[in-house]
């Protein structure tokens, strides 16, 4: 935490009765990744939640991992230090990419990603006293080899009795980052059947869904499927079937959660491409 920034903020507070600006520690470069904690808003309001994002900006050639990293690697781990009255929800992950790691298949990211987190602010949080949010982020950066990375990040936000204003300097970034999040399924009837060594997804489109040429299921669980196996998409009378090979581990669970990806998009290209939708299904016979 940059103590100079805290001091300035408190000085403003003492002088003007409020910190109109958020202050944050500088981004941290560790293991070929620049990590940063950014806020969508410039101040917060009691009783209203707001969004933060953990930005991971990876050097060329280096990648980090999704919550299920696939056949090797490790997902980022976020440990929050929150003041009284603030709490965080689950991380919203962008949809992952398939990474080819010399004959292994892993799930992760290259370039820059935002991991979204919603912060809840209790009604009882007093106005006028700035709040500091701390985050310890640990991750694994890999290129040909892997290096563990770590960053201690923080953010100070003023608490005001007005609707939080958007920070225009990150507005576009948040917009683009949200486009990378998988959407709720709106146009498909999706079921998943147990076929012994395979999971068989049955995908039936409604009228506003487009045609698919290929699809891929990214499971949340690391031990559910064979990550390197081909996932074959077949056209059927009512829609499509996607065959996904189970892993050696084959845990006997019924909740099948993950992300369904298709390059053609799940709503065609009419309203803007939606390449990834969330899948939260119950396995049936």
């Amino acid at each position, binding site marked *: 935490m940059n103590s100079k920034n805290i001091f300035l903020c408190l000085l403003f507070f003492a002088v003007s009765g409020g910190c109109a600006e958020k202050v944050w520690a500088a981004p941290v470069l560790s293991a070929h990744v620049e990590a940063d904690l950014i806020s969508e808003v410039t101040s917060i309001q009691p009783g209203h939640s707001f969004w933060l994002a953990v930005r991971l900006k990876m050097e060329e050639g280096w990648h980090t991992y999704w919550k299920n990293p696939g056949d090797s690697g490790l997902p980022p781990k976020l440990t929050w230090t929150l003041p009284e009255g603030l709490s965080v929800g689950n991380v919203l992950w962008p949809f992952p990419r398939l990474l080819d790691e010399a004959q*292994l298949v892993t799930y992760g990211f290259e370039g820059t990603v935002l991991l979204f987190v919603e912060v809840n602010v209790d009604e009882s949080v007093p106005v006028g006293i700035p709040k500091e949010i701390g985050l310890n982020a640990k991750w694994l950066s890999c290129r040909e080899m892997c290096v563990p990375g770590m960053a201690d990040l923080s953010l100070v936000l003023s608490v005001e009795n007005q609707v939080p204003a958007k920070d225009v300097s990150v507005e576009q970034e948040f917009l683009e980052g949200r486009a990378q999040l998988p959407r709720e399924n709106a146009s498909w009837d999706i079921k998943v059947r147990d076929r012994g060594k395979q999971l068989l997804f049955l995908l039936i489109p409604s009228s506003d869904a487009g045609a698919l040429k290929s699809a891929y299921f990214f499971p949340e669980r690391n031990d559910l499927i064979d990550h390197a196996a081909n996932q074959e998409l077949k056209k059927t009378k009512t829609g499509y079937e996607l065959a996904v090979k189970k892993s050696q581990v084959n845990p006997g669970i019924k909740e099948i959660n993950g992300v369904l990806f298709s390059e053609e998009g799940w709503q065609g290209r009419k309203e803007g491409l939606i390449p990834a939708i969330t899948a939260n299904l119950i396995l049936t016979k």
Partner: protein
Amino acid sequence: MRQHLFGFVVFVGILSTVLIGQTVYGDVANGEPALEFTLPDISGAPHSLSDYKGSYVVLEWFNYDCPFVRKHYDSANMQKLQEEYTQKGVVWLSLNSSAPGKQGNYSAEEMGRLSSERGVHATAILLDPAGTVGKLYGAQTTPHIFIIDPNGVLIYQGAIDDVPSTDIADVAKAKNYVRSTLDAAMAGAQIEVAVTKSYGCSVKY
């Protein structure tokens, strides 16, 4: 938006290259006979799996430069396990399948020196730079553990323990699957967890 579409095209390109190829891994199922192999150790002497019929055998895939392997070696966790179980008659084979020029690959002499420095207590350190045995077994990560019973049957495969991380502090907190499998098998008890998803760096074939 266009840059996202480009990303997808590249992504699908990778998808087809990776997945339409052959399956690289052997599918060695638990309960089945472990597959035979012969590899040289760091002094050049050959070791075959069949040499060890009649003993429990642990196959431990390693790469001294991988942070996950380092968690278990820097903490002396691996060396302690090796010592404890070899003293009970278990045969512990440490295998290295890093290809020449890739991380973790060393000459037999260098490997001997590095193992010595670490106080490695394995029965033998086997060199598999061609990756033949790694791919035969489907070794995906370092570490990756396979445990074979005295009848030559595979009884465990997967992670070394249940906390995938690079933090040394997690070693003590984790349930160690080498320990739990061997202790149960040697006592004639049921092995509770026989297959897990291994964690670690990718094997550098």
